[in-house]
């Protein structure tokens, strides 16, 4: 289980303070997929970076398996796997070399790493190109290598940061299957995306984030009941445009252009 408590981060941009994340709290249980949703600039990536210990929160903390980020950020990182939008591969290394390198970075015992590599090669169908240099791989193959990289240390918590951005239908399907796999394995999955239609398909619960504030949190049914809308996109626009209610947390409501929230964005 992962728990974020009261996370706050403020940046100074050209001398002006900007609250990127504002007193954000949520929990995700094992085997649950939690969608951290919001338009660009909502504070999703900043939240993930605070969870990973790359950014120090101004206040609040993250707790994974009883370990708090404020005390042991290294121990927290060992329990996290990250799949991100821009994930790349090392062109001059073979797939095997790259995956074992990341196992070393997570201090996995070499024997265990070799076993896990075999297992992931079967699971993600890497066997045919495992000893090829990454520069020779197709986009789909590279994507599978990236997914395997996130699992080499078998983390209990997976952070997926806009994992389908820039992918075609086939690539996106692979990600959905991967999320299913993680769920089956009882991982905590935190999916950060602005593609609400995809989130609707794979997430068990959602946190709608805008300008660093958590606007709403709940399951899809709870959201439907609360809004009377069928889809997340409609719900989110309704929330943002609503003068009262949950949206009152927004200090200066703005209209989000629909294209930022659309599936094709």
């Amino acid at each position: 289980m992962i728990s974020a408590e009261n996370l706050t981060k403020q940046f100074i941009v050209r001398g002006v303070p900007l609250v990127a994340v504002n007193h954000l709290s949520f929990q995700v249980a094992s085997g649950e997929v939690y969608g951290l949703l919001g338009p660009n600039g909502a504070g999703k990536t900043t939240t993930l970076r605070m969870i990973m210990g790359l950014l120090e929160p101004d206040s609040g903390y993250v707790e994974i398996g009883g370990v708090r980020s404020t005390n042991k950020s290294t121990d927290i990182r060992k329990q996290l796997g990250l799949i991100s939008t821009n994930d790349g591969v090392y062109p001059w290394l073979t797939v095997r070399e790259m995956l074992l390198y990341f196992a070393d970075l997570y201090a996995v015992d070499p024997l265990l790493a070799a076993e896990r590599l075999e297992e992931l090669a079967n699971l993600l169908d890497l066997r045919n190109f495992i000893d090829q240099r990454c520069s020779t791989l197709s986009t789909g193959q590279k994507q599978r290598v990236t997914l395997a990289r996130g699992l080499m240390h078998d983390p209990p918590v997976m952070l997926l940061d806009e994992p389908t951005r820039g992918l075609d239908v086939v690539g996106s399907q692979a990600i959905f299957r991967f999320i299913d796999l993680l769920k089956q394995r009882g991982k905590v999955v935190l999916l950060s995306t602005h593609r609400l239609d995809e989130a609707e398909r794979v997430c068990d619960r959602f946190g709608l984030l805008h300008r660093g504030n958590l606007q709403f949190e709940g399951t899809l049914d709870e959201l439907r009941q609360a809004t009377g809308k069928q889809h997340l996109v409609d719900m989110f626009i309704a929330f943002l445009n609503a003068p009262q209610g949950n949206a009152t947390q927004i200090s200066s409501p703005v209209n989000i252009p629909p294209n930022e929230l659309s599936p094709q964005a």
Partner: protein
Amino acid sequence: MNEYLSNGRLWRLCQKELRESLRDRRTLFTLVLMPILVYPLLSMALQRLVIGANSKTKEVTEYVLGVEDEEAGGKIRELLIEAQQTLERGFASPITVTRSNDPTEKDTTSSPVKPSDEIPSYKIEMADRATLDQALSDGRLDLLITKLNIETTKLERGVFPAYTIQAEFRQNDLRSETALSGFRRATQLINDYQAALFRKQIDRKIPVAMTFNATGIFEKADLSSSIAGVIPLVLILMTITGAVYPAIDLTAGERERGTMEALIATPAPRFALLLSKYVAVVTVAVLTALANLFATWMTLSFGGLGQALFGKSGFSVLMLLQILPLLVIFACFFSAILLALCSFARSFKEAQAYLIPVMLLSLGPGLVTLMPNVQFTTLLGIVPLLNILMLSRDIMTGQSSLVPAFAAVFSTIIYACATLVVASRLFGAEAATSGSQESWSELLSRPKKKQMLPDIGELAIYLALLFPVFFVASNLGGMFEWKGSWALFLNAAILFVLFMLLPLLYSWYRRIDLANTFRLSEGVGRGEPIWNRIARWIGYVAGVLLLSAALWMVAFEAYLLFESWSLASQLSEEDKERLKSDFLVVPFWVVLLTGAVAPAIAEEFFFRGFVLSAFRSKLTAFRSVLFTSLLFGLFHVIAGSVLSIEKFLPTIILGMAIGYVAVRTGSLFPGILLHALHNGLVFSMSRFTEQDLARWFGEETKHIPVVWLCGGVLSMALGAGVLFLSSQRNQSHEDSN
């Protein structure tokens, strides 16, 4: 951190970086092809430079010819006049060319007189042989007549003198060689004229009128020292070139490939990540340096340029072995600089934009080394890049000296460590924060959180700032010729500022816990009965007294050992005597205050306070004490403008002893006492004359008597034991650090 440094994991991380770099064709191109392309071109350019340097010979109207006595001078003058007259008579001489060293090797051709056959004008200088040799070597003389024998032969038609002349000239020096060939032509002309006369009269055996042999001495061309400076510059630029691509690829490249975020999201410490990249960049840089050095050696050895630049032995293997470690040290330093700059960059383009000015800037010191009159002084030894370039130049021209060499090597290593620390802090910071400027400002800003101890990185940065200042400061007394008490007070003031005041200020700025770092409070004692405390401190003082009673013997014997290895201070006997008499003039209380008490306080604050605590933040107590003592020893080797190598070993031993005291007691003060007592005893010893020492130690030996040494060992063991027992309570506190 330890799990990344153990089990060969760090090596596997390095292997990945090496694979990435060495499999990349662009790296291989710089590594292999560049030397192959560059050096033949460089060789041609240098040949032209050497020739160009000597081409001013064309403007020379008079050559300088040296003889040992007036008689020989007169004969040579007559001979040259005769040759000139022969030429003026329009005598068409067959030209005989004799190669310089081998008179038997002759190539005789006939040709009409050409303008180039004219006999040049010679100015004859007379001096003793040593002066002439020196003048020839320096280029003030173009030809030296070393032997002139005249044998007369009576013939029916008269007396014919037969000259045997031997000369020396500078080989590969166009001016000297022109002077030689002119002189050779003169002798040949007379020979031929004599032969022609005989042929006209009687067909009989003619005497050899002139036998002329010349020996070339290998001397550098006029501009050779400055041209020799080109070679280290080229080697260093090529080493940089080799390191540039891997440095960009392994840092900014991570970001462009999209692997940076995944990399810094791992629990691997940034320093371990950067260290593995550093190893790869240094390896490629060193391989490039090796390839270039080999290509240089081949070019200079087989192109004949080596002898023109460096004298008879050319670019020797010994020279090569001396330059290689310098290139390795330089590669370590510059790779760290490159990584720091590239870590700051977000893309290949940005990294290149940062590196180009740095490469151009590095040409500046390179040009300085080309100036023949710029000496590699002691103070230049601490100027990064310039120091290695000038040291390489001086090694190549055989003029290197120890103090600037030590300063160059030691400072470059410290700068490399500090730059690596900065690089590790910049690496990946941009990926975590929102902009590059924040990563810089975070590096320089005052931390928000308090730290219990400084870390090793902070120590490296502080040392990089301290060493040059300390080095300049330790030369201040010599520069202003301060003597006596003033020099000692100045020295003490410098110690207080650099070793106590600045570390305290730095620690305050970085919010480092002062009491903990500088061991100002033992961490125990609260709630401890006052009598226990007093007893403990009595134990500390007793232990320290026992240790100090033995440590001066170690210092004394170590000095004798170094003296027997001829490694003691390079001061001449007169200098030593002068220093000693200067020293004896100073009141003894001043010596004790500035030489024992002041260094004890200042140096203990730094070494057993700041340095030991920084090492303790990551290492075991033993390793921390050992590394602290090594630094303590190295800083003591620098003593103004000379190196006191003999101080190295005793200072390390003293450092180990004080380190033990500091770790056991958890306090700085017993160490200060031990340091002050030790220095005080050593200075007291130096007040005694050799007769006093002989009276105590015995006439026949300079060494301390065995009985004394046994007493010293016993005293040391007892002291360590007393300290061990007295400080039992402190260990839980020390371990928690």
